[in-house]
């Protein structure tokens, strides 16, 4: 794939990583405590009065894995974003850029050289064809002579 397409693909990848990051964070964010008069949604029963309450609290405890992801996912996603940005910079550094006038000059030089080489190729071709014709004529003579010599058999 040519480098400009790679740059464009890299740009798209950066935008995908960015909006995936924000989307995931918004979707998986735990509810926030609005004021001290409302119950804390993260910790619904903070003061168990008896052991019974403590026992009943065990079954409805939330499963552990989602809270771990909440800390590691943003790190992984921001890492991906930084990697994508670095890749973009590396691709930009690898761009073989030159000015327009240089390119046009080079094109004209190459066209002139192409003409010269083309003419020479033409001359060589004609010379070779001439030689081929001569060789053919000699070959025909030789074979005619061979046939004439063999006639008395």
């Amino acid at each position, binding site marked *: 794939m040519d480098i400009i397409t790679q*740059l464009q693909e890299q740009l798209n990848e950066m935008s995908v990583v*960015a909006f995936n990051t*924000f989307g995931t964070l918004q979707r998986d964010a735990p509810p926030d405590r609005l004021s001290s008069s409302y119950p804390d949604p993260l910790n619904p029963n903070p003061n168990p009065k008896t052991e019974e309450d403590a026992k009943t609290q065990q079954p409805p405890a939330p499963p552990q894995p989602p809270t771990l992801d909440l800390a590691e996912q943003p790190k992984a996603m921001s890492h991906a974003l930084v990697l994508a940005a670095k890749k973009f*910079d590396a691709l930009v550094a690898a761009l*073989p850029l030159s000015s*327009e006038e240089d*390119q046009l000059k080079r094109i004209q030089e190459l066209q002139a050289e192409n003409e010269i080489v083309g003419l020479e190729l033409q001359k060589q071709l004609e010379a070779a064809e001439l030689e081929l014709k001569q060789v053919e004529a000699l070959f025909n003579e030789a074979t005619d002579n061979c046939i004439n010599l063999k006639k008395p058999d």
Partner: protein
Amino acid sequence: MATSSAYPPPPPFYRLYKDYEQDPSSAPEPPPPIDGEYMIYGLQHTTDEVLPSLEKGGIRQLYPEGPNIDFKKELRTLNRELQLHILELADILVERPSQYAHRVEDIRIIFKNLHHLLNSLRPHQARATLIHMLESQIQRRKQAIEDIKQ
């Protein structure tokens, strides 16, 4: 089997070519290629293929204008700006979530600028491809000359 209307008949121009075999000049010439602007399916098109400038799309241009743009420097600058704006968006969402629209709009403008810069590199790529093709053609011709000489 539902009844359906037949297709419309083909255009009647075939009658004009009845004597084409005997007299090729009696039939009309094909229409010349269109130049300039033309209408198709109700939309205006133009044959002059040129990248529309950012103002035509109504986007603010973030990199300096001029005949010679240092593409690498501008691309790198815009990349930094993009990262900064993404970070700012994250901050704004934490502190003042209702003001996200301005930041998102900024990020959109940066992306449009970046893509426009990359698109304006395409003519340069085309010229480079042409140079490469000419070089390989010269190489092939020289090789053919060598082969003939041997």
